[in-house]
């Protein structure tokens, strides 16, 4: 199961303006790898994730580019093909577990319906058995199969979401902010669960988050996004030890590390650009301490530098 995104552009069309939420992004994920997609709010990472299953909400639209998922071009394929791909090839964990479950349906029913819709030949008993097995592997007591979502805590609901995403045995799992609304300890539990499932099911995982910490823990490779573009992609250990892009450097320096003594946190002055009227040249230059003339005119493209790729004129 490999994913190859080539020069993807996703725009949101409002009455007044056009906003490029994702701008010519290219990246690929190899089989069995965990890619961490990191960025702050508004950088386009969620939109990128949704594009892979072609669920960008209107007024968003995939304008250009290809997304090749296991041989299928997600952008150009038919509606039927993408529907079959969702759930079977790709599992998606949506952002808010609190509202993603049907409050009037029992938890077991969520699973059974999903299984039987996509695999109509499966009998009710078999679907039930598979559901019970899944719940067990998620750490949910099997007798809770008849409970309703509101009877579950946040962490439990997130586990259910993970289970639903994996119910049809997809090879690729995309998790969009899987731990954001959860408590610290539950967050750690979910991260451990994801790691365990990844190992046992041999998944390819894309983890979309603004939480640098869990990316450091789980990802093999990390892609940093800023204002709809990829700023840097590289191997996790390399990127954390020696971040190349000034944004990555600033971002990593602004996250407190409880293990580091005497840390002085830094921050990035200013605010992310207004994507409706972006500045010329490199989108980060107004806030970049290393910006020089070329940065204000030319847009940097991703170039190879040592083991990573970075979009910055400093390395050109």
């Amino acid at each position, binding site marked *: 199961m490999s994913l190859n995104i080539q020069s993807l552009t996703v725009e949101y069309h409002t009455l007044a303006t056009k906003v490029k939420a994702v701008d010519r992004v290219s990246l690929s994920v190899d089989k069995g790898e965990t890619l961490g997609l990191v960025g*702050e*709010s508004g950088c386009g990472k969620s939109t990128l994730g949704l594009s892979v299953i072609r669920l960008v909400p209107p007024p968003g639209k995939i304008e250009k580019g290809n997304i090749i998922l296991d041989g299928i071009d997600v952008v150009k394929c038919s509606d039927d093909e993408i529907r079959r791909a969702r759930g079977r090839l790709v599992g998606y964990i949506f952002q808010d577990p609190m509202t993603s479950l049907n409050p009037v349906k029992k938890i077991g029913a969520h699973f059974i319906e999903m299984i039987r819709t996509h695999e109509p030949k499966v009998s009710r008993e078999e679907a039930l058995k598979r559901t019970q097995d899944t719940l067990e592997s998620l750490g949910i007591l099997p007798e809770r199969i008849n409970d309703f979502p509101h009877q579950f*805590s946040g*962490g*439990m609901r997130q586990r259910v979401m993970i289970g639903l995403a994996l119910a049809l045995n997809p090879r690729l799992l995309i998790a969009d902010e899987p731990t954001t609304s959860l*408590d*610290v*300890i*539950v*967050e*750690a*539990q979910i*991260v*451990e669960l994801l790691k365990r499932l990844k190992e046992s099911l041999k998944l390819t995982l894309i983890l979309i988050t*603004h*939480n*640098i*910490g*869990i*990316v*450091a*823990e789980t*990802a093999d490779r990390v892609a940093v996004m800023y204002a709809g573009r990829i700023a840097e992609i590289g191997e*996790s*250990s390399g990127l*954390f*030890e020696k971040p190349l892009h000034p944004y990555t450097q*600033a*971002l*990593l320096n*602004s*996250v*407190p*590390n*409880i*293990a580091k003594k005497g*840390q002085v*946190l*830094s*921050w*990035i*002055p200013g*605010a992310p650009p207004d994507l409706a009227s972006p500045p010329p040249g490199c989108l980060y230059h107004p806030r970049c301490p290393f910006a020089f003339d070329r940065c204000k005119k030319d847009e940097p493209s991703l170039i190879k530098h040592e083991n990573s790729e970075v979009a910055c004129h400093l390395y050109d």
Partner: protein
Amino acid sequence: MLAVTNLTKYFPVEKGFLDKLLTSQKSFVHAVDDISFSMNRGDILGLVGESGSGKSTTGRLCLKLIEPTAGKIVFEGVDLSSIHGEELRRFRRNMQLIFQDPFASLCPRIRIGEAIRHALSFQGIGTQSEQIEKTQVMLEGVGLKPWSNFYDRFPHQLSGGQRQRVVIARALVLNPRFVVADEPIAMVDVSVRAQILELMIELKKEFDLTYVFITHDLAMANYVCNTIAIMYLGKIVESGPKEEVFEKPVHPYTLALLSSIPVPDPKMKLQRMIPSGEIPSPINPPKGCRFHPRCPVAQSICSQKQPELVDVGGGHLVACFFDAEKRLT
């Protein structure tokens, strides 16, 4: 400066009509259960806990935004339960709250300059022009320079970080001595958080403030605070100077929290002690030590008696029957 003794707050649980008819038993959310602590002038206390720990409720009790079910809060020698009505309204200028959600804490239809000035006018401080001047100074003091750029703007015209600064300006324009900050940076972008924190620390020095910093983010608490109190299900389980609590943690819950924080460094291999299960409901907290159902070193006594806070040296208090660290190593 602040002395809290046996503070308790139970919220009654609203029952449906039928339940009210059929059962006479009332149930309560044990938000805060018999906690005591004190703060000196100039302290930055980190009130750390997960959801249901009672940290937000504690903060609001200290500000007398909610009335305690039991217990005493003495602020600068004044027993808070003795102030009411008009006197309370004027007393509010001594203590202020910084909110978590920068957008929801500003009225969307009031310009931010006016919103800050309201604090002064509600307290009847100065003439209108004096109030406007003080507001201008405050805006620049939180880094919104020049004030003329910002005074007439509406909240939706500012970024999250800027809005949070307005909230801080509004809280500090009254020159309070005591400020409770409830998750002040949780809803601000990661790259801007440190800026807000630095601002709060600078203002602390300038105005000689005492802070209570309510958060679930231990790393942030470690960065900013000098004393920490860890709360679980309405009780303080461990407290003391930051160095003691974070470097020599004793309580199993503190150990669990510290080992659960994601560390932004892939090279660090963490020794994880993640308890199973989730936080039980504060309506029916476990008997005995609240943490015992999830505690890896729980003994039979833990389900029978509630541990008291005991000093293990250097002002480091722990509520646990056993010296957990010794047991783990």
